[in-house]
Every structure is written in C-alpha cells, then in structure tokens.
C-alpha cells in the first residue's frame, strides 16, 4: 500500500482556516464583552425629568471604572447645557463599594415642550425632559410627602378623523375650520392641533403657520393647550391653538397649516433593520444609536373653505366692514357738569365678530359739541378675541349751559347668521350743563351767606367788567426795584452824593460871615459915637475869633508871634490894635475920627478876607 505524502502546507492552511473563524469569533466576543462592560460601567441620570420653565435639571454621568474622560455636550434646540464640573465618590453595588467618578451638567430650557437628550456615553440611552410653563403645578411636588404627582390624563384613541400621521408616524398637524361658507372679513374661530411623539420628536422649531396669503390668522400663543393621547397604541403629546381666521377675498380655497419639527428619523431600510435584528441586539442597538434628529416641516391635510362676498344690496353708507353679531349701548359721565367742563360719552359694542373693523365713525354726528379724538379699548371674553366688548370713550365739551341732548348713535354691521345688514342704535342721552364753575360756585356762596343772614360779599355780585383798552404797558413784570438796570440809578445817585459829601469842605469865611457883619455893625456904631474903648474891644474880640476859626485853634492860643508869622506886616497892625485896645480900656485913649476909619478898613479887610 502506497501512502500519499503529507503536504504540510495544506495542513497549516486547514488549521489556520479552522482557527481563524474561531479567533475572529473570540475577538468579536471580547469586543462585545468590552461594550457590555462599558455599558455597565458608565451611565447617566437626570433629575428631575419634569421641570418648570425657568428652572434647570441636572444630568449626572457616572463612571464605575476609574477616570472618565470629558463627555461632549449634546446639541438640542431649546436646551442649554452647561458643564458644572466633576467629582469623585463611592457607589455601592451589591454590598460592595466601588470608586466612582461623576460629571455634572446643568440643563436649562428656553421654552416649554418635550425634549429628547441623546446619550452622552457611547452605549447610553437618550434622556427625556418635559418642560412645563411656570403657572402649572409645581413639578417638584413629586417629592412631597403630602402631594402625589397627578398622572397625565392619557386617553387611548384611534386615529381621529382628518389626521394623517407624518414623519414616520411620529407627528401630525390638523386644521379644524367651520364647514359652512364664510364672508369676506368675517372672523372665524379655528383650531390648530399638533401631535408629537415624545422621544422621537425632539423639539418644535416654531409655531404653526397658515399656507397661503388670502387669509389672515391671529397671532398664536406660545403657550398652547396641552393634552396627551394614545393614538394607535403610541403616546402623543397634543398641542392645540385656538385662533381666528379671516378671509380677505371671496372664492373657494384650500387651507392647511405647517409646523417645523426636529425628529429622529430612521433612515435605514427595512432589510438592514431585519439583518441587524437577526445578528442580535448589539448590532441593532448600534444601528439605532446612529440616528440623529433631523429638521423637517409637516403639513396638515387640506381643508376646503368657501368665502362669499359681502352683498352690495342694502349696504349702509356708514358700513365700516364689521361682520358679526353685535349689540350696542351707551352711557355718559358725569351726568351733570359745568359749562366748559369735559364729560365722557361711552359706547359699548359687544358680541362676536371682527372687532378690529368696528370704528368710531358714529361720533361724527356730534356736531353741536366740541369733541376730541375718541379712545377705544377691547376686552375679549375668550382666548382668541372672537367674543368680547369694545368700548369707545368720546370726550365732549358743552359750551352753553342748560339741558343738552346727545343724539343716539347708530352702528351698521353685516350679520352672517341672518345674511343681512343690520343697524344697532342707542337712545339719546340728556345731560344737564350748569353755569360755569365760577358763576355757579359764587351763586352757591352768595346763597349760603344770605341764608345765614350775613351781608352778601361785594364780590358776590359777579365778575367786574373788563377794562378799556390798555394804554400803557411794561416789558418786565418784575417791579422796577428788582431790576438790575433800574438799581443802577439809585446806586449811582447815592455814589454821587457820597462822593460830594466827602469832596465838599465847609467854607470858614461863610461860617463866620454872619458874626463878622454883626461885629462890623457894632464897630461902626462905636466909631460914630466915638467910644474908642468899645471900638477896640469889639475889634479885638472879632478879629481873634475870626483868626481862631480860620486857623482852627483856640483864641487864647493866638500870640503876637503867631500873628506876625501868619499875617506878615498886617500882623504888626493887629498887634498895635490890641495894644490900643488895652490903652483905651485902661488909660482912656481917644483916637481921632481919621484913625477910626483907618482901623475900620483894616478890621473889615481881615474879617471879610479882603485886603487893602
């Protein structure tokens, strides 16, 4: 028997062919084991999962396997993420303490809604965050011992009529409008519903908008009414906006609304998903982990609406475009005023309809009153302003006293229920206009004083009449003595007088002239009578007195030397006169008449300042 030689190379290939799949399988198993280990050793939690707008939630990423690298912050429209820091601690698992590392992230919402936060670690699941408005019940009441959280009312329902699920069954939008025909300008209440699946629809990126330009839609609230429904076994958060629609032109229209969303859409084909499902959960999980939110816009099914034109037949001239069903009333306050005082006429228009077309043209007929621009205010009685009351306030002033009548006001509108133009009117209002404030008050004052027995005041007779045309006027109300320009006049005068007072000196000659004249008269008399004793005595006294005043010294201080020094040669004559006075007094000396004349000239010259 011949044995075939062994080909070792084939043996090696065969062995490798057997080992290789096993090695690959082992490697895959190890890789899967690592992934499972990661999934088990790192995870994140968020508290609380439901918050109010304005509050924040906290995400804690926990690692049970040593140091945890920084995690990338996710990007979710409407949420702000902020890395607060990291810490270390211990986690107790099955009675064992395991060293742990934590990363804390704060999440702050910018608006209400349901948000889905993608996992921060490779194998973690996404987190859900519900943000409610500030006026809703406190979400933290969940932790209260006394209050238990109210479960959301979830009503199972099949697909409602008119709803078409979009975005892979994750969302829908619906427009609810009346089925009847409407008129141009008529305000029609409409409802817009948007349903989203939390977790799949990550955010709403804007308010629903109406497609087309032939209609006007009132501004939608940022806080819609929210409810939860189960549609075809899936939970939906349904947001409902109530608004008012108005057509701007007649015709047959097809209406729909659109709303932008961010949705996690699976882009893999069904075959791929089936293969991944057969390969087991790691493959299927990795496939779903690759899904990222995508911005899309979904639209509602079209709704037909017929818009009719307003009839031209029977249209009032003062029709301003108001369509609806209105009632009017009026009041005035105060009911009694003085002439010239303002009073306010209020016109109340209530009902349903397009209140923006209700204007104040009805006040144009108040031509006998002085009017000012009217003010208006609208108080809605529903959320959308379809029902309510509009109040016009018209200030009026009556110029004349007495009983005045404000005519009734008329308001025309088109009633779509009766399909006719209608006219609402108010009743005329009577107002008592008293005399002007001054006259009426004065009359009351005078009457009161008369009743008390006191005499009536003079002013109680009324205003005194006007003065004739003014003849003189001034340019400055401030009195003269408070005007700087005028104050210069007395100031200048006072300065001149003060300066003069200091500048002018008294005249000694004038001061002594009277006594000198008196002395000269006595000297003349003595000379004529030949009384030398009296003559020289009077002459000496008068001269010394004059010299004393002139030289500002006492008469006793005047000596002979002083006379000679001040008067020169005349001093010697004065000295001789004094000597003759002594002689005449003590020795009866009698000078001749010639001598008297000589001495008289000398004395007169000295007394009056004249020189011979």
């Amino acid at each position, binding site marked *: 028997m011949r044995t075939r030689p062994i080909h070792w190379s084939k043996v090696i290939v065969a062995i490798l062919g057997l080992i290789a799949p096993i090695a690959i399988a082992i490697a895959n198993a190890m890789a899967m084991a690592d992934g499972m280990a990661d999934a088990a050793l790192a995870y994140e939690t968020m508290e609380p999962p439901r918050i109010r707008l304005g509050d924040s939630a906290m995400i804690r990423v926990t690692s049970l396997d040593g140091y945890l690298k920084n995690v990338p912050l996710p990007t979710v429209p409407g949420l702000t993420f902020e890395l607060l820091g990291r810490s270390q601690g211990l986690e107790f698992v099955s009675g064992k303490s395991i060293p742990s590392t934590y990363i804390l992230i704060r999440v702050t919402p910018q608006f209400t809604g349901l948000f889905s936060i993608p996992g921060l670690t490779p194998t973690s699941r996404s987190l859900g965050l519900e943000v409610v408005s500030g006026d809703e019940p406190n979400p933290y009441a969940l932790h209260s011992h006394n209050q238990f959280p109210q479960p959301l009312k979830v009503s199972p329902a099949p697909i409602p009529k008119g709803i078409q699920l979009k975005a892979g069954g994750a969302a829908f939008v619906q427009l609810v409008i009346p089925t009847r025909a409407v008129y141009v300008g008529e305000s029609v209440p409409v409802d817009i519903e948007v349903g989203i699946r939390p977790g799949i629809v990550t955010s709403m990126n804007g308010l629903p908008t109406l497609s087309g330009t032939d209609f006007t839609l009132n501004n939608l609230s940022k806080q819609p009414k929210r409810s939860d429904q189960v549609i075809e076994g899936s939970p939906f958060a349904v947001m409902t906006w109530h608004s008012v629609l108005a057509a701007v032109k007649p015709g047959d229209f097809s209406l729909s609304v659109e709303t932008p969303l961010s949705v996690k859409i699976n882009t893999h084909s069904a075959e791929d998903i089936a293969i991944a499902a057969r390969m087991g959960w790691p493959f299927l999980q990795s496939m779903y982990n690759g899904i990222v939110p995508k911005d899309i816009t979904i639209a509602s099914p079209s709704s037909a609406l017929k818009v009719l034109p307003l009839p031209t037949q029977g249209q009032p001239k003062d029709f301003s475009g108001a369509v609806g069903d209105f009632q009017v009333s009026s009041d005035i306050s105060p009911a009694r005023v*003085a*002439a*010239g*005082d303002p009073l306010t006429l209020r016109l109340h228009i209530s009902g349903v309809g397009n209140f923006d077309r209700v204007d104040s043209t009805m006040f144009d007929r108040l031509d006998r009153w002085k009017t000012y621009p009217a003010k208006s205010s609208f108080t809605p009685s529903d959320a959308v302003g379809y029902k309510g009351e509009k109040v016009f306030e018209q200030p009026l002033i009556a110029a004349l006293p007495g009983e005045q009548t404000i005519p009734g006001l008329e308001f025309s509108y088109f009633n779509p229920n009766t399909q006719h133009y209608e006219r609402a009117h108010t009743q005329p209002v009577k107002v008592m206009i008293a005399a*002007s*404030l*001054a*006259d*009426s*008050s*004065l009359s009351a*004052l005078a009457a009161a004083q008369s009743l008390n027995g006191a005499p009536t*005041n*003079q*002013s*109680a007779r*009324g*205003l*005194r*009449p*006007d*003065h*004739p*045309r*003014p*003849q*003189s*006027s*001034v*340019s*400055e*109300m*401030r*009195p*003269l*003595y*408070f005007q700087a*320009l*005028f104050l210069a*006049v*007395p100031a200048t*005068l*006072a300065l*001149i*007088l*003060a300066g*003069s*007072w200091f500048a*002018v*000196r*008294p*005249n000694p000659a*004038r*001061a002594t002239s009277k006594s000198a004249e008196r002395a000269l008269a006595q000297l003349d008399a003595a000379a004529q009578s030949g009384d030398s004793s009296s003559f020289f005595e009077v002459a000496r006294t008068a001269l010394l007195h004059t010299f004393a005043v002139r030289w500002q010294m006492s008469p006793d201080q005047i000596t002979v030397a002083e006379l000679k020094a001040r008067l020169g040669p005349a001093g010697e004559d004065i000295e001789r006169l004094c000597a003759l006075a002594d002689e005449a007094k003590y020795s009866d000396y009698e000078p001749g008449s010639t001598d008297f004349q000589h001495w008289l000239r000398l004395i007169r010259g000295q007394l009056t300042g004249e020189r011979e």
Partner: protein
Amino acid sequence: MRAPTIAMLIVGLALWCGQTLAQPWQPRYSADGLYNLANSYARAGKPGLAVLNYERASLLAPDDADINANLEYVRASAHVATEPRTRFARIAQAANPTLAAWIGVLGIALVGVGLLARKLAPRFQWLRAGGVLLGVALIALTVSNAMLLWPRMHEAVVLINQTPARVSPVPMGDTAFVLREAETVTITAEHEDFILIRTRGGLSGWVARANLGTVVPQLSEPPPP
C-alpha cells in the same frame, strides 16, 4: 485831562445804549390787559389761569379795586382760601411798584442833599432836618413795598385741578397730597421738570412744572395774547 475822560464817558454811554437797544423784543404787559385776560379765563371756567393773570395784574396795579375784587371772587368760586391783607400791607402797597421805586430814588436824593447842605451851610437847620426825615420815610416806604412784594416773586398758581404733590421729583413718586386748582403756593426749589412748593398750610411737595404758572412770567413763557 478832562477832555479824554468826557470822551470815554460818552463812548461808554453810547455802547450801553446800543446794547440795550440791541436786546430782543420783550413781550409787553399791562395791568388792564392781564385783567381782561383773567376775566376771559374766569368766564371760560378756568379758575387757575384766571387767578394767575389776576395775580400778575395785581403785581402791576396793586391798588386796583376791580382786580382785587375779581381775584377774590374767582378764588371764592374755586373754594380756595384767601388771606386778607394787613393794614401795613395796604399802606405799603398803596403805591404801585414803579411809583414806589422812583419814590425811593427821591428819598435817597433828599437824604443825600440834606446831609450835603448841612456840610455846606449851617443855616436852615429845620429845613434840612425835615428833608432828611422825609427822604428816610420815602426810602422806608419803598423798602416796605419791596419786602411785601418779594415773596410774590416766588409764588405760583396751580393750573390743574387735583394736581398731585409728590414726595420726590420723579413722575412715579408717591403722592404726598393733592392741590386744588387756583391755589397759590410758594416756590422753594426746582429740579428739572419739577418744582418744590410749599402751601400756605406749610405742606411741601414736588409738583410738575407744567401744572404751575409762576406769578412772574418765565423768560421762556410766550407773551400774553
């Protein structure tokens, strides 16, 4: 030496006259015109503006019986309290301020001339003394007149009824009390668009400038019609 001095004086006088004439035209006020204007406001039922113009007319003609009677009448109609003038005030305000101003100048001249004459000539002492005494009396009359009118330079009249007086000079300041139209108040301070006033009852508060009319018109105020 005298000729250059006189020439400089003449040039200075000419410059002063030119500056005076070059000033912008100012509104003209007359007591009769203001009185008639006040009557118009009173008839129109505006006691605040009526009292304001009566006060202004009274400033120019304090002894006018019609002005005082109508002022009292409108104040009584508006239920605003009035204070009767004292006898001293009636005497001091017998002359209108313009006449009182020139009387004061005459008094200064009499006192000055009397004192100067006493220095120049010792004669007629009784005449000089009488002149000085008369001058002092005239000056006292003018000073009294000015002292009585000085507070009115800082008075204002409330033009709007129920004007709030606030605790601080801001529009949203708390209201301390409410003023009646045609009430006369005293201005004590100003801050931007608010005026600190004091009532005759002693209350103080900040009032919006637009709600008051000053008795002495502000420079920015338009002239009377």
